[in-house]
Structures are given as C-alpha cells and as structure tokens.
C-alpha cells in the first residue's frame, strides 16, 4: 500500500501545514473548530512528488536545468524555462493508480453533496509562501477535468516568478512544497468578511460584517460600497448600514467577472437576521479559541439549507492594530492639547 496522499479536510489540522499547505491546513483547522467550510479534500505535497517522479516529469526538469542552468540568470531565459517546464508537466498523464484514487475521492464528494459531477474549485495550497503560486481553477466538473486541472495547479509551481524565486533562494528546481485543495464550488448568494473588532476604533464589543451579493471578491475590491452590519457581541442587537451595491462578482465562462446588481436588490440587505446570528455565533467561538480578534471570510451557499448554508473560507488574526494605533495617536495628540487651554 503506497503512502497516503489525499486527505478529507476533516482529517486535517493546523499541524499539517507542511503536509498539505497552508490553505488546506487552515480549512482543516476550521473544520475541527466547528466551522462549516465548503466540502472537499486536499492533495498533499507527497501527491505532487509522487506525480513528478512516477510520470518522469522530474527527470526531464532535472535534465533541462542541468543543460540550461548557467543561462537562466536573466528574465528572458526564465520565461523560456517556465514555458518549457510547464510544458513537460502538463503533457504528462497522471499515473493510473493515482488517477483512480483521485477519482474515488471525487465520486465520494459528489455523493456527499448529492450532485452528479459536482463543480469544484481546484486551488494551490503552498506550504511556504512563494510568489506566483496563486493558481485557482473554478467550476471544474467531472473526473477527467479534475485530473487535468490538478496537474495544471502543480505546473503553476513553475511560473516565471516562482522559478526566479527558487533560483534566488538556492532551492532545488524540481522540488516544490505545494498542496492542492479540491472544494465544492459554492453557489454564492452573498459573501463577505467578518471582523470581530471594529478596525477603526479597536472596539471589541462589536462585530463588523461586510457583505455583497455574489462572491466575496467585490467586498474587498473597493469597487462597491458593501452592506455593513454592526452586531453587539453580547446581546446580538445589530445596526445595518445598507451599501449601494451596484455591482457583484459572479462566475462566468472565463472565470469570475463583475455583473450589474438587479435594481431591486441594490438597497436590500444581503444578509438576514438568522444568518447574522449564525455568523456571530461562529465568530465569537473563533475569537475565543484564538484569543485575539479575527478576520474571517464567509459565504452563503444558495444550494444548502440554513444553517448549513453559512460557510467559511478563511480565518486569520485581524489586522486592526495599525488602524487603531493611528486613532490612538490622534487621541493622544488631542489630549496634549488639554494643556494648552
């Protein structure tokens, strides 16, 4: 029996960072803390290494590097190297046994969410942050397409920037600690962020939830004014500042794209009270668990019933200190004026 290289998110935790990469480990950790995340599984770095060795891609890369190394110190040649190496990788078939295992997991995932050929997002999950490893392929349907896109994510370890980075760091060319996340595509009715601290004041008694229709990208993009919900952590009372939601981000044939929000939805709050309550519940748990204010990304999936529809895709410590700092410094300056009256 060969080494295990595919894991359900439920099997993972933060400790598995080196095994499956940061994104997958985070999602696993979130699951273990009781947050609902999009159903899915992770391909470990061993999966990558196994593929590279067994398919022969690793050998080809080693040969290419041996022949060209002295030459690839300039950008032009790095671009050429990237093109060549990605070509080697993407032309390889996935070894038979690996493909069977991958497909078995995909079928199980389809069964879990009750959809045949469920659409998935295939994302890279680096164990160390490396520039250029941001490849994401959305709405991938069917086993064959999945195989192809997993290989494309692996191949993204050889973008020009990633190659330059490896050279600069003196890292081996064919080695890349890269994991892959395979997650059910969320049918996002709305999405956004949730901060357990008001970033402008440092007030930790309230939650700030920002959201818009469609995918979450629009909320952080600054292109639109999202809805803002200030929720009192103790009593759950909330205040809603409805944003002027003119545009939203949707899946299109070529990935995500901006679309106009229908007139009647522009001034309608994108979240309802029960959903706010669910977000509040989870956010409070997370903050308590980590002991510091959290910055979290949520999405409401239209395919699922409440409360299973409130999904989480990211949780990290909130960056509010800097903002708070400047407020505090402003206040300190005002206080110094007390002595000038």
């Amino acid at each position: 029996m060969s080494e295990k290289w595919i894991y359900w998110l439920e099997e993972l935790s933060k400790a598995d960072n080196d095994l499956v990469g940061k994104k997958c480990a985070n999602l696993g950790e979130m699951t273990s803390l009781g947050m609902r995340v999009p159903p899915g599984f992770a391909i470990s770095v061993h999966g990558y290494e196994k593929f590279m060795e067994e398919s022969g891609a690793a050998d080809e890369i080693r040969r290419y590097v041996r022949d060209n190394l002295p030459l690839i110190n300039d950008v032009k040649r790095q671009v050429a190297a990237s093109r060549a190496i990605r070509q080697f990788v993407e032309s390889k078939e996935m070894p038979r046994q690996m493909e069977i295992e991958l497909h078995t997991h995909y079928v199980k995932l389809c069964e879990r969410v009750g959809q045949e050929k469920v659409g998935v997002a295939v994302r890279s999950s680096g164990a160390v942050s490396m520039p250029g490893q941001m490849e994401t392929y959305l709405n991938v349907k069917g086993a064959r397409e999945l195989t192809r896109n997993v290989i494309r994510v692996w191949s993204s370890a050889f973008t020009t920037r990633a190659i330059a980075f490896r050279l600069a760091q003196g890292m081996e060319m064919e080695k890349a600690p890269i994991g892959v996340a395979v997650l059910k595509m969320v049918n996002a009715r709305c999405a956004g962020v949730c901060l357990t601290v008001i970033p402008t004041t440092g007030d930790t008694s309230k939650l700030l939830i920002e959201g818009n229709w469609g995918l979450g990208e629009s909320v952080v993009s600054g292109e639109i004014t999202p809805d803002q919900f200030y929720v009192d952590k103790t009593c759950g009372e909330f205040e809603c500042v409805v944003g002027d939601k003119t545009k939203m981000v949707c899946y299109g044939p070529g990935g995500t794209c901006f679309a106009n929000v229908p007139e009647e939805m522009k001034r309608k709050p994108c979240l309802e009270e029960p959903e706010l309550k669910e977000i509040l519940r989870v956010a409070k748990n997370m903050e308590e668990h980590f002991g510091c204010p959290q910055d979290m990304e949520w999405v409401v999936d239209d395919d699922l019933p409440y409360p299973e529809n409130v999904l989480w895709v990211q949780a990290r410590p909130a960056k509010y200190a800097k903002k708070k700092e400047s407020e505090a410094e402003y206040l300190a300056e005002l206080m110094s004026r007390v002595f000038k009256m």
Partner: protein
Amino acid sequence: MKIYDVVPGLEFDPERDLAQSPAWFLDATHSVPPWTPMFGWFWINFCRHGMQYGAEELSLPTVKGWDWRFLRGGGYLTLLLVKSEEEKQRREVAFRSRILPFIQDYDGLWNGFVKEILGRYEELKALELDTASNIQLLDNFEQTINTCRRMWEIHMYMMYGTYIAYILFENMCRELAGIDDTSPLFHNVVSGFDNKVFQVDRRLWEFSKEAASKGLDTLILESDPSDIRKKLEETEKGRQFMKEFRAFMNEDGWRMQRMSEMNLPTWVEDPAPALGMVKQFIVKGGAFNLEEERKKLGDKRAAGEKELLSKVPSEQRGWFEQLMRLAQKSGIFSEEHDHYLDLYTHAMMRRSALGLGKRFVKSGAIDHHEDVFFLIPDEVRRAGINPDQFDLRYIVDRRKADWAEWQKTPNPPAILAEGFDLDQAMKVLVQSNDPIALKVVVGSMPQVRPELKADLYGTCGSPGVAEGTARVIMTEDELHLIKEGDILVAASTSPSWTPVFSMIQGVVVDRGASLSHAAIVGREYGIPVVMNVFEGTTKIKSGQRVKIDANLGTVYILD
C-alpha cells in the same frame, strides 16, 4: 527643636517656602481636621512623591506635579510649573507616547496595578503580629512604608492619565455635541457603571435583606450602630448573622473610617460603621432595590451614549467613541482607587503601626498602643528592635500637646506671599492646566450672581434642584443621623459615605470639583450636588430647610 519636626525636610518654612512659591493651599479635603503626626509623615512624603512621579512618568507638558509642606497637622501644596516654552514642547512630544497605554488598554493597565498592590497587602497581612519577633514587626513596618510609597506612585500616575481623558471629553462634548457638564445627557453617559465600591454596598444591602429575613431588623433598627454587634451576639440567629458579616469584613473591610487618617479603627476591627449602613438600608425599606436602581442607570447610559454619538459628525465618531469609553473610566477609577489604594493602604499602615505600638507598650516605651501615631518612622526605628531600652513617652507627650493645639485653631485655607492675593493664586492654579488641580483640588470658582439672591454660591457637581432639611455631617460616625430626604451638608465626602446617597435628596460641599467623590456619586444616584461653596458647613445648621439649585450653583437657607 529638631526633634519636633514631624516631616523632616518638608516642614513649612514661611521665609524660604514663600520665596519658592507665593501661594500654598491647604488640602482641606484630606487634612481637616489636622492629621496625627505619623499619618502626616506618610501623606506629605508619599503623596508628594506620587504626584511628581505621575507627572514625570507621563511627561505632563505644563506641570511637574506638586510640592507639599507640613504645617500644624495640615498639608499645604503648591504647583511645580514647567518654566520654559522649550521644555514644555519637549515634554509634550514625550507625553503623546507616554499616554498611549491609557488609550490602548486602560483596563489592562489598571487591573495590573490592582493586582500588584493587592499582592503587597497579602504579604503584609501574612505576618501574625501577636507572635512575630520585633525584627519581623519592624520589617513589616518598613515594607508598609514602601507599599505606601508605591501606592501613591500608582495612584497619581493613574489619576493624571485618567483625568486628562475626562477633561478632553468634557471639552469635546462642548465642541462637537454642544453639551456641557451640567447637561443631564452628559451625566447619563458618564454614570451607571458597576465598581468595587458599589459591589461592597450591594453586599451591605444584601445583609439588610438577610437581617430582615432572619427577623433581626427590629433589633438593628432600635439599636445605636455601636451597640448592634453586641446585641446581635446575644441571640443564636444574631451570632450566625455576625459570623457571615465578619467573614465579609475580613475580605472587604480593610478600610478606614476617615479616609485620610489612621487613628480610627478599620471596619475589620470595629464593624459599627458598616453595621450602621446595614441599618440605613433597613430604614430605607423593604421595597428599595439597589440592583434595579443600578440597572436603570445602566439603561439610561446606553440610551445616552447613542444620543450623544448621533450628535457627533460621523467621520469623528471613531475616536470620539474611544474617548467616551476612556472618560467613562474616570468615575469607576475615582471610586475604585479609594477602595484599593488609599483606604486599604491606610488600613495596612494602621495594622502594622499598631503591631509595633502594642510591643512598645509591653516594654514600657510608650503608654498606649495608639500613641504610636504620635511618632514618626525614624523614632519608631529607634526603639524597633529593642523597645525595652528606650522611653519614647516624652516625644509622644509633646506631640500630643501640639496635636491638641492644632485642633483648636484651624489652619488658614491658603498661605500667600505679601502682595499676592487669592484671585491671583487661583489663576496660577487654573493656568497650570494640571488635571488634578482642575478636577479635584480647586475645581472652578463659583460665580457670585447677586441677582439670584442666594445665601451661598457654588458650582454644579451633579445637576438638579432639591429642597429639604439640611443635615451637617462632619465625620463618618455621624452618618447614621441622616434621615430619608435630607440634604447633606459636608466639608467633602469620601467612599464610606456612598450608601447614604441613596437616602438623601441633595448635597452641598465646601470644596470639590467635577471628579470629586460627591460629584461622581451624586451623578450615580441622580441627585443634585452643589460644590465649592466654601462656607456651607459654617453657615448652614442641621435642621434648617434649604433649597439647592445645582444647575445655577445656588443654595438658599429658607429658615
């Protein structure tokens, strides 16, 4: 003469000290009636140290704290001003970073200090005074001195930082929301917080409920506070009540009857004042619910906060709300610091000094254990390890005679250089922008408005109008004389007076400012407080009907 110095190095010397500063003010809030020598030694040395420490640690731009002198049992103080513009600017730059801990994590800062000082008290209390060796007793006394010194550092550092925020908040409320500190909205926003002193009061109120449920209320109502304990101990139910009450005292009874003195028993030694408060709550009646009263204030505050914030332009709301939260700590700090700092440290001073005093009596160095309060630490050290070798009675005798003299003629409210008048002196205080001068010591001066035809003019500590019977109270042991609906007239008030605020209709105090005890507690209880009337306790007699209008700062004697 040297031996008569009570606070060596800091005795008032008219010639030298008036050359240093033309105006010295009596701290009437704390040093009237005059202090015992030992207490004066502690206060003058360390309150002075604490104020300068606090001003320096925060790098206050315009002041370096205060200088203190001792004169006939009174504390006289004057400001230490920053002299050059260049130095002011330098200090201001540093101030902006030194004040940040207050803004960033006020509760963490204060709770850390509380933990530190409570830890010191526990160490001091760990020594069994009756069985300790002389060396251990002396060591305990030295540690007490250090604790008092540290207490004042924390006290003044926190007080300066906290009150600066409060002053800024008052100013900003005027500028941005158009309300001043006589506005009910302002008062609603800064009151209604729970704090340690209220928690103690709540326990006393609970004891009054328990006394009623045990059928002990009539006995308490019919007894003088000083007899309550004795009478309770005569019945089984009463003994049970006192057992619980003593347990409570051991935890929260480490406080003095008079806030700034050590010659009266602590509640632990003599629970009569605390039992007197239980009695007050019984008088107040069964339907009175302290808990509900507190909750009402909390609700009012929440509504007030919303209203106030809505008056502030939205782009300013972020820091304004942060400032509001900070200013709200002032009331909590004012009450809690008395409990955790002054009252508790003074109780520790009394405990440690009496431990030595009893040993001195045994060896014949002094006649009575409380005579130790007429010695200063250097003299205590003289006999500390070998009290049988020294006779300190001649020092005690002379000091006692002096102390008796001090009681007869009150200290003047200010000592001024020739050609310098009180108005000028007050101006200097106000121009210093020293937060403690502005908010606690002097406050603003009352405006005499003849057209109002009032008998006394003061300033507004808490808004409102009331009419009732005046009750002039000079010391805590007279508090039980207060009846429901009275108007309290006092020189000033301190935390142990808090419970009577639930019975009275209004307050008139001789001295005080908007962060003095009477003003803060008056706001908590929603009753009018007129302060800085200077002559309230001399002009008003108990039993007279008076009308007070705190909004205008006027007091009318109707009889």
